């Protein structure tokens, strides 16, 4: 190994805070004039960051191995920084159970080298991942293993579920941006959008941390759903409990199962019980475009207020022209569908066209539970005239695009919470407008 360079050694002392004021002044002066000294300092800083990254990665894996195989590891071996082939060897050496050995070994062989920490276990719509020094991956599929990074749903229908090595799952819907890492402690940041999580018990002292622009959540093991935008975070806890800190003033509180909270600087910060579900609902489009998809149009002499369908391209490459309105909101009771429920939609088309109608639903934990739809032929829609259709819920089937995930999703939308009601035309703009949507309860016998 090279002999130490006195200048570099002095920089190490400087960073360690061990130089006198006069000596520190000399170092500062040398840094102004000496490009090599600055280069060494930058190198030291980068190496410090990368060494910590690698150690977090190693410890994260070690924690996972301990959870899978509680037998004590061979002392000393695991303390080494790993090379690509080593973790598999280490797992072989330490595990007591052949079954665990095989599963852990396969996991590392399949996912190692670049520190993959999560696997996509469900996916619909367009998403993309950015990480690994800026690499962008768009051709994500179920089974893709990912390093920590930023994953985005990039269309209104996007939905994906990530599963971490300990079985914790996080699902995101719609246009959302999630930063995630798991280097011994899961750390997530949701920039905007909707997420639900089923969090396995986390190691003591290392809760999963989920941060938004307005709140920070600490989770030890629970199920919850969260919705956030730039100014507010809405949290619903269905199992366990979540500690929430409101970032605007540092106030924090614990939210138990069956309760919810809104963290926003301009709103009362207190724990409220979940609202009892209802089975009837009517859209309020005349009031404005909040929680809608489409171009909102105010009422005028010729028509009601409504949403004009807007185009976007779905993952299979189809362009659809869609209008949608959110149904269950944080500050309103959840709207639940029954087998005898009906949907009523009023609107208009400028050109005759088949129209698809449907609902997006969530399960009791707030997790995405599918999109269910039906289609009505163009003969039912006269160009330039209003339509008014009532659809028995029994007519709605799982969106064929979701067929690959059919095993994970319910076959029918019954007894699920309505996230949104929507309609669209396929491939061509038909000037579809939506004036009103309703959820009608089963008829009273």
């Amino acid at each position, binding site marked *: *190994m090279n002999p130490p360079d006195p200048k570099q050694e002095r920089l190490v002392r400087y960073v360690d805070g061990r130089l006198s004021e006069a000596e520190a002044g000399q170092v500062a002066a040398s840094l102004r004039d000496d490009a090599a000294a600055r280069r060494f300092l930058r190198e030291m800083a980068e190496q410090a960051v990368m060494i910590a990254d690698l150690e977090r990665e190693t410890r994260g894996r070690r924690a996972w191995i301990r959870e899978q195989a509680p037998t004590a590891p061979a002392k000393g071996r695991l303390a080494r920084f*790993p090379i690509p082939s080593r973790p598999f060897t280490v797992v072989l050496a330490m595990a007591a159970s052949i079954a665990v050995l095989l599963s852990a070994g396969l996991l590392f062989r399949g996912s190692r080298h670049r520190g993959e920490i999560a696997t996509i276990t469900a996916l619909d719509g367009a998403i993309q991942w950015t990480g690994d020094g800026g690499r962008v991956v768009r051709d994500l599929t179920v089974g893709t293993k990912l390093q920590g*990074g930023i994953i985005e749903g990039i269309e209104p229908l996007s939905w994906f579920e990530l599963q971490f090595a300990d079985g914790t799952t996080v699902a995101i819907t719609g246009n959302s941006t999630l930063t995630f890492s798991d280097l011994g402690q899961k750390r997530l940041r949701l920039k905007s959008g909707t997420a639900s999580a089923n969090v396995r018990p986390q190691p003591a002292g290392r809760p999963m941390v989920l941060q938004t622009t307005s709140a920070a959540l600490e989770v030890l093991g629970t199920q919850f759903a969260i919705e956030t935008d730039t100014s507010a975070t809405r949290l619903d806890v269905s199992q366990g409990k979540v500690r929430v800190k409101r970032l605007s003033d540092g106030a924090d509180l614990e939210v138990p199962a069956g309760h919810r909270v809104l963290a926003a600087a301009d709103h009362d910060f207190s724990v409220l019980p979940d609202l009892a579900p209802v089975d009837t609902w009517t859209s309020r489009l005349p009031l404005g475009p909040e929680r809608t998809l489409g171009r909102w149009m105010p009422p005028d002499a010729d028509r009601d207020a409504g949403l004009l369908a807007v185009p976007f391209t779905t993952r299979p490459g189809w362009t659809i022209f869609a209008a949608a309105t959110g149904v269950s909101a944080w500050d309103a009771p959840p709207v639940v569908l029954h087998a005898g429920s009906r949907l009523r939609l009023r609107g208009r088309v400028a050109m005759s066209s088949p129209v698809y109608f449907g609902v997006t639903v969530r399960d009791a934990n707030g997790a995405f539970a599918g999109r269910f739809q039906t289609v009505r032929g163009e003969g039912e829609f006269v160009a330039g005239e209003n339509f008014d259709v009532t659809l028995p819920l029994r007519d709605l089937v799982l969106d064929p695009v979701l067929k690959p995930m059919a095993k994970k999703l319910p076959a029918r939308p019954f007894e699920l919470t309505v996230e949104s009601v929507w309609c669209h035309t396929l491939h061509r703009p038909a000037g579809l407008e939506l004036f009103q949507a309703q959820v009608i309860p089963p008829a009273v016998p």
Partner: protein
Amino acid sequence: MSLSEQAVLQALMQARVRVSGAAWLIVRDTHAAEDIFQNVALKALTRDLSFENESALLSWAFITARREGIDWIRRHRREITCLDTEILELLEHEWQSEAVRPEGLRVDALRECLDSVPEESRRLLRLRYFEGHNCEEVARSMGIGLNAIYKRVSRLHESLRLCIEGKLGDAGPDLETGAP
């Protein structure tokens, strides 16, 4: 035309180690540096900011990381001798202007280089940069004199630099594996 959100994300991730490194020079704590980088990324995406080009973004990111670092020192009441703003700016400018290799490759190269140094040296680096001990605490923990620690740390950084460059250039040797 300003950078798209995607371009902002990509550029920040490409500069993660450099921005975190700049933060580390201020706070001297790798975990705090990581937090600072994440805050910088979050601000870039959630505040109503636009960046005309990558250079403007990185310039903002380094400045923001510096401010966050100074704020972190105040909040944690750490007694850290901070470099002059002038020197920090010089370092940040060099960080922004240098041609960089993909950081994923650098981390992989460092991983391999670390594997070829003795366990005692890895322990030293772990104690210093992951556990966050100062050199005196590391010396005590390892039963080695403080001056020897300084010598080892400086030699290790230089050797790792040469090793990483060698691996990325496909020309350099592994580190010598003799005792440090």
